[in-house]
């Protein structure tokens, strides 16, 4: 175990210092955070500026102060757009709202300003319209009107409650997002194993290393090191993505109302981790058999396509998520993690199916490590040559 860990940490340290890895790992989240921060910055924007309005309907009540959360919008009424425009040009107001005379027949109001109002000002202007149209109604009526159809969905069997809106979306999106994370992890991490092994062969270092430890220890150490690397990358992306999503949502959603059922991340971990290792081990086996990096990438690409098989059958699957094809793909070790999570998003998946899928996955992983270690011994010293079928067969029979 000590040597496996030594191989893993050395692999990790060597790869994490590469420029490509650093750029991919940190560049992407920086872009995500910047993208997520834009609406937050605009909504946050500090105090609300003074604005004007022109009521061409003549039916709105005069309103000069609109409190919202931690700020107050100050408004000035103008008799016509000319007066509002003059005040705007003098810098007395940051913009002005024109409510046209046919507003109550469905025409929209128009807001004139140097730039688009942020989310906070938009919210204040909406609150102003409610107050101006219904001046005599109490505050709670106006609050209710802001969100008139709030519904909580209750599961009849379990009694579990889910509030409507973002909470429902988050609940159903979580398994899909986790399935996507699994696919990204496989494509960016596990499938790179083959190239890593080919690089090892190219550097002619294998012969010296293999006389210090067993082939299975080298395979296990490489897979573990690359997995740690992939987890680091995913972790940085998750933190970046989390901050970006948090910033983007914080201006519109109360994050505290969001909840994720515990079964989802549990099954994502139980199926995802061995699923990832299975891909990594198989990709390293393909790397051992490949003659060069290009061939290893091509073979890994085929493996990646297998992993994305659920997408090919999505048309068939979506209509029968508990049908034989869906159940079969859940049991197949290369598609099990992804299809299992996709099904969990949309239907109730029987627990026995998930447990069986996990058992098959773990058995396949153990079998693939055994198989790859055998191939490894035969092919590791074939520099620049691919393993021929008869050599592969001999290796499997011999070792």
């Amino acid at each position: 175990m000590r040597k496996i860990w030594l191989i893993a940490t050395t692999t990790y340290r060597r790869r994490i210092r590469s420029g490509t890895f650093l750029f991919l790992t940190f560049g992407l989240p920086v872009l995500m955070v910047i993208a997520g921060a834009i609406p937050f910055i605009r909504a946050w924007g500090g105090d609300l500026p003074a604005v004007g309005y022109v009521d061409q309907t003549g039916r709105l009540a005069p309103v000069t102060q609109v409190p919202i959360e931690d700020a107050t919008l100050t408004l000035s009424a103008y008799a016509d757009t000319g007066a509002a425009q003059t005040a705007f040009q003098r810098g007395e107001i940051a913009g002005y709202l024109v409510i046209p005379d046919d507003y109550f027949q469905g025409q929209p109001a128009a807001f004139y300003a140097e730039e688009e109002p942020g989310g906070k000002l938009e919210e204040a202007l909406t609150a102003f319209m409610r107050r101006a149209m219904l001046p005599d109604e109490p505050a709670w009526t106006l609050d209710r009107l802001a969100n008139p159809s709030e519904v909580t969905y209750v599961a009849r069997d379990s009694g579990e409650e889910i509030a409507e809106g973002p909470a429902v979306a988050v609940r159903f999106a979580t398994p899909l997002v986790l399935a996507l994370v699994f696919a990204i992890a496989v494509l960016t991490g596990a499938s790179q194993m083959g190239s890593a092994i080919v690089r090892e062969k190219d550097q002619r270092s294998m012969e010296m290393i293999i006389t210090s430890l067993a082939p299975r220890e080298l395979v296990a150490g490489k897979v573990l090191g690359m997995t740690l690397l992939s987890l680091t990358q995913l972790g940085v992306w998750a933190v970046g993505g989390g901050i970006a999503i948090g910033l983007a949502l914080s201006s519109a959603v109360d994050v505290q109302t969001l909840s994720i059922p515990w079964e989802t991340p549990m099954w994502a971990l139980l199926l995802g981790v061995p699923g990832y290792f299975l891909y990594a081990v198989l990709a390293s086996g393909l790397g051992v058999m490949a003659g060069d990096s290009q061939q290893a990438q091509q073979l890994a690409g085929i493996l990646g396509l297998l992993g994305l098989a659920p997408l090919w059958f999505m048309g068939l699957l979506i209509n029968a998520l508990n049908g034989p094809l869906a159940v079969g793909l859940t049991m197949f070790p290369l598609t099990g993690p992804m299809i299992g999570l996709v099904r969990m998003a949309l239907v109730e998946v029987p627990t026995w199916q998930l447990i069986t899928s996990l058992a098959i996955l773990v058995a396949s992983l153990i079998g693939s490590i055994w198989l790859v270690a055998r191939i490894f011994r035969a092919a590791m010293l074939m520099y620049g040559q691919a393993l021929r079928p008869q050599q592969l067969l001999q290796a499997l029979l011999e070792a």
Partner: protein
Amino acid sequence: MTRSTHALEVRDISKTYTTVRAVERLSFEVHKGEIFGLLGPNGAGKTTSIRMILDIIKPDAGQISVLGGTMTEATKSRIGYLPEERGLYEDMTLLDTLLFLGQLKDLTRQTARARAETYLHEVELWDARDLKIKALSRGMNQKAQFVAATMHEPDLIIVDEPFSGLDPVNTRIIKNLLYRMCDRGAAIMMSTHQMHQVEEMCQRILLIDHGSRVLYGPLDEIRWQFASNAVEVDLRGELDQVPGVERLVSRNGGYRLLLQDGVQPEQLLKTLVNMPEITVERFERVETSLDEIFVRVVGRKVTNEEGTA
């Protein structure tokens, strides 16, 4: 009970790749505290034999006993191997590489560091410890590989062409390190084509060709065995063809004559004395160089094969 003096015992090992017989019923021993030469032309089966000894590939038949038993993971830490196909991780520094490889051989990190420091000073690479492997010259790389293969002070050291790419000064450094390890009791098996190095360093040799043993035993005995076949003569006159002489080479105003099998130097002397066109001034049996022995043994086989083809 006596302890075995053999660090390595190979008994009747064979290996076939698809249809090519790489090694055939090969047997030999390497003693503790000796430098043993493994010789043979390219493709003779030397690397395959080494890889079978190191358990990198399995023999089809035969037994190998390494350091008193079959190869185990624990045994691997008592073996040092400098392969012919050399390579270290190019993106790692020299010191990190040695720490990594030393720990793979069961040294603690502290011990690996101490050993790396000692050996790097000895091979004059301490100042290059923080350079990446890809920044090292060929000779530096060669010395780094040697240190990586031996810094755990193994009991059996297998080195394949240890002096390739080294200038005479660095060759001397590596040679001294090998002598010291040998004095410590380590068995050293050296595969090389540099026959003068074998003559200088090895006590016993094994010459293989086409996977089979051709010559095996103490170097002195082998040289004695081949010594009678060569004489040096100084003479007046010109020599062209001489009965009983296989090869005739003119050198330093005289001749070196390589005798045919079964021809004794005394017979040749009589032949020369009886040749009226020359006068023999000096006649001396010479020790045959290993280089000549190699060419004779391997070359003869090649010639025979060409003749029967």
